[in-house]
């Protein structure tokens, strides 16, 4: 019924990479929140969110990214967001979040 979201994580040594595959919406966002917050609390490392296979995100999902960034900053860490599709990059620009996160191609 609702969009699927698959989340995978990989420890790169100096950071944790999280791969998002599918849709982050009001239905799937709680799982994303639990995952990201859990990773940040467990690891004192930078977080890299790979969005190559992320097809959709709404403000609920963007809000979770912001919350995760606040948590990471408390530990002196950053969040890098990479391989955003154009439609999603547009939302980052509209909301000004492109200035808050480190966006990589």
């Amino acid at each position, binding site marked *: *019924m*609702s*969009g699927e979201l698959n989340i995978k994580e990989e420890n790169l040594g100096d950071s944790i990479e999280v791969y998002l595959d599918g*849709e982050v*919406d*009001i*239905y799937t966002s709680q799982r994303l929140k639990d995952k990201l917050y859990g990773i940040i609390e467990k690891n004192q490392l930078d977080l890299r969110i790979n969005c190559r296979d992320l097809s*959709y995100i*709404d*403000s*609920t999902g*963007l*809000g979770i990214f912001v919350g995760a960034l606040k948590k990471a900053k408390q530990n002196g860490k950053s969040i890098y967001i990479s391989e955003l599709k*154009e*439609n999603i990059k547009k*939302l980052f620009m*509209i*909301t*000004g979040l492109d200035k808050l996160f480190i966006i990589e191609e």
Partner: protein
Amino acid sequence: MSMPVDNIELLLPFKAEYVSIARLTVSGIASRMGFDIDTVEDIKVAVAEVCNRIVSIGSKLSKYYKINFAISEQSLKVLFTCEDKSIRCIFNNEDAELAVSIIKALMDDVEFCTDGSYILSMTKSIGENM
């Protein structure tokens, strides 16, 4: 806005798992009307933001909210209604800031607080995007 040629209505429960149905429906309608792919995506995102908010607020009086898609030759008007009249001005809170910026940027015309007969209306014109 010109008179609608056709109307499509969608009645949805206040449940997060059904917001994707609104996204799929409006994508189909906007594509059928001839909006380009990027604009279809914009309309889909804006509609979903409103649905998210309505679902988050919820209702003790109504089981459903309704989305009306008024299709005319020049535009698509999306009207959100609910029998529960307490659901009005749904984006007045600070935590809705992201959603409001998205909706304002993606749609041509949005009525956030209405006279009370409906929750919100938003319009996208074909001419401005083709």
